[in-house]
């Protein structure tokens, strides 16, 4: 399967700070990719580089085999939904569909109309008066009706109430099923992503900490608890992601390719949220030891 996003040492800098550092990814097609990380980790930067809204300061990026925003053909293959789904407040829902029709040769008017009907959006209503969930749905319609191969969404449900959030994700999954889209969606909440993502990228402090299919990652990570022990005494092949100690007990979250055979450890599986949190705290710890040049500002 070819890669939808291929980066090599990708970096992006704002003045003196690197928002994204040494990012090397090969995101396969046909997945719903979750891009997780704390605020300010570089998620929006990575997505903006993929759509061509930004140009790299270091490294390379290829999307669907082409340079982002290289021309109308490339732009037609990638759909984007920015944070908070900006729309033209003075234009109506129907105007937005007309915008899509006029500016996209691949526009599917029937699909757009069906979606608007199904979502109970009033075509004559000004987009500025729509609720947050409706705006997100309108923006998704615009992104999806041009039949892209890849859809990028920046925190699409962050500001939505739980019902709107569920409806949006369900709607998105339906579009994925119908059109065989690849999707990358970012969030700072893991719970949003657990249901829908089958590929995970964790971004902390401008760096990629872990990337891979969710199933493989969950199978490769284990929670080990046992008597108090120095992690350095562990055998090779076990990468410790996070460790916590009490005076009598040690709990480790490890990544390993093989089984854990040491009987001293109680081995249990790890949920996606705990896995991501472990990498986030690892990233935070490493961040504090990094040189000041790489400090990133958390909002």
């Amino acid at each position, binding site marked *: 399967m070819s890669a939808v996003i291929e980066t090599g040492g990708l970096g992006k800098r*704002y003045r003196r700070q690197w928002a994204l550092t040494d990012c090397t990814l090969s995101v396969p097609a046909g997945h719903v990719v979750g891009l997780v990380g704390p605020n300010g980790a570089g998620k929006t930067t990575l997505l903006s580089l993929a*759509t*061509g*809204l*930004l*140009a790299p300061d270091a490294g390379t990026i290829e999307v669907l085999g082409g340079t982002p*925003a290289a*021309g*109308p*053909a490339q*732009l*037609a293959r*990638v*759909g*984007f939904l*920015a944070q*908070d789904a*900006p*729309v*033209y*407040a*003075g*234009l109506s829902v129907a*105007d937005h569909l*007309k*915008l*899509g029709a*006029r*500016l*996209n*040769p*691949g526009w599917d008017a029937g699909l757009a109309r069906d979606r608007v009907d199904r979502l109970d959006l009033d075509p004559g209503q000004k987009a500025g008066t729509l609720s947050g969930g409706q705006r997100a749905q309108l*923006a998704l319609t*615009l*992104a999806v009706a*041009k039949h892209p191969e890849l859809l990028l969404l920046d925190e699409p449900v962050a500001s939505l109430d739980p019902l709107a959030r569920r409806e949006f994700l369900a709607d998105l999954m339906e579009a994925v099923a119908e059109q065989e889209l690849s999707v990358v969606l970012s969030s700072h909440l893991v719970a949003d992503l657990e249901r829908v993502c089958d590929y995970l990228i964790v971004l902390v402090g401008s760096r990629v900490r872990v990337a891979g299919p969710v199933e493989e990652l969950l199978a490769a990570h284990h929670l080990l608890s046992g008597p108090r022990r120095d992690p350095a005494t562990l055998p090779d092949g076990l990468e410790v992601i996070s460790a916590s100690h009490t005076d009598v007990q040690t709990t480790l979250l490890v990544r390993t390719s093989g089984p854990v055979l040491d009987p001293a450890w109680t081995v249990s599986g790890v949920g996606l949220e705990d896995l991501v949190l472990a990498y986030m705290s690892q990233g935070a710890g490493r961040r504090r030891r990094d040189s000041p040049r790489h400090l990133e500002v958390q909002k």
Partner: protein
Amino acid sequence: MIWLTWRQFRVQALTAAAALAAFAILLAATGPHLAGRYAASAITSCHGGGCQSAAITFLSQLQATSTYPVVYLLGIALILLAPAITGIFWGAPLIARELETRTFTLAWNQSITRTRWLAVKLTLTGLAAMAVTEALSLSYAWWADPIGKAIDLGGSTSLFSGGRFSSLIFATHGITPLGYAAFAFALGTTTGALIRRTVPAMAVTLAIFAAAQIAMPLGVRPHLIPPDRTIATIESSGLDYGSLTATVVPGQPGAWLISSGAINPAGQPVSTLPAACAGSFGPKVLSPGPCLESQGIRETITYEPANRYWPLQGIETGIFLALALALAGSCFWRVSRRRT
């Protein structure tokens, strides 16, 4: 993209159309009457020196009415303000609004490049701004033609005194309105692209454009083509005895009198009546002219002859159009830069 540009521009376009229509109605209601007054005045049958007094009479009567002065001033004000208004309300928000509301994430991810997006928006809206200003100018020129003719004949009142070279009139007649409109619009879009906030961009555009609008007639226009100089007799220069400045360029009807001053035989400037002639200027005696001439005092005049009107118009318009193009170019550069 043309549809989207129109759809986003609709309200401003309709507002401008309404204003233009209202002004056109005003001109249409009063213009024929003005032409009628001119045709009925003594100007149409005057000869030589009598024409000036006929013109003064015509203009004085006009100034005494209630409508014509208002329309006259309104027209000039509208044409002078139109570039600033379109620059602020059409130009500044063009890019800044998209950046401010983040709708650029929507616009720049359709199947259209940023360059094409900007090219269509800039060209259509810019041309509209130029068309509005020029439409105001042309329709006003039609209406004010009788007044212009009277002034050219030497007529002058306190209100109707500006010939086509005067500071206010030059920028409102001919093709200069096109240049001002293009410059103000391009200035608006560029400040919007750089500042990225609509309201501050509007303020900066207004400030810079107003400065340019004032600087051009005061400091730049007289030097666009190096002016001619001549030294004339006191009598032929129609001297104003209070300021010792000329009012007419002898032998150059319709010329633009830029500056003048009295000089003594040694060539030094004279700013006040010499003591010898002081007694000849007072409430009862009105003509110190022969006295000044006997002192060897003459008038030096800096001017542009009448036939330089259109070249000056062309150069001034050309400068503003060139500035507009350069600004527009920087907009393209800024929008495609993709740094932040």
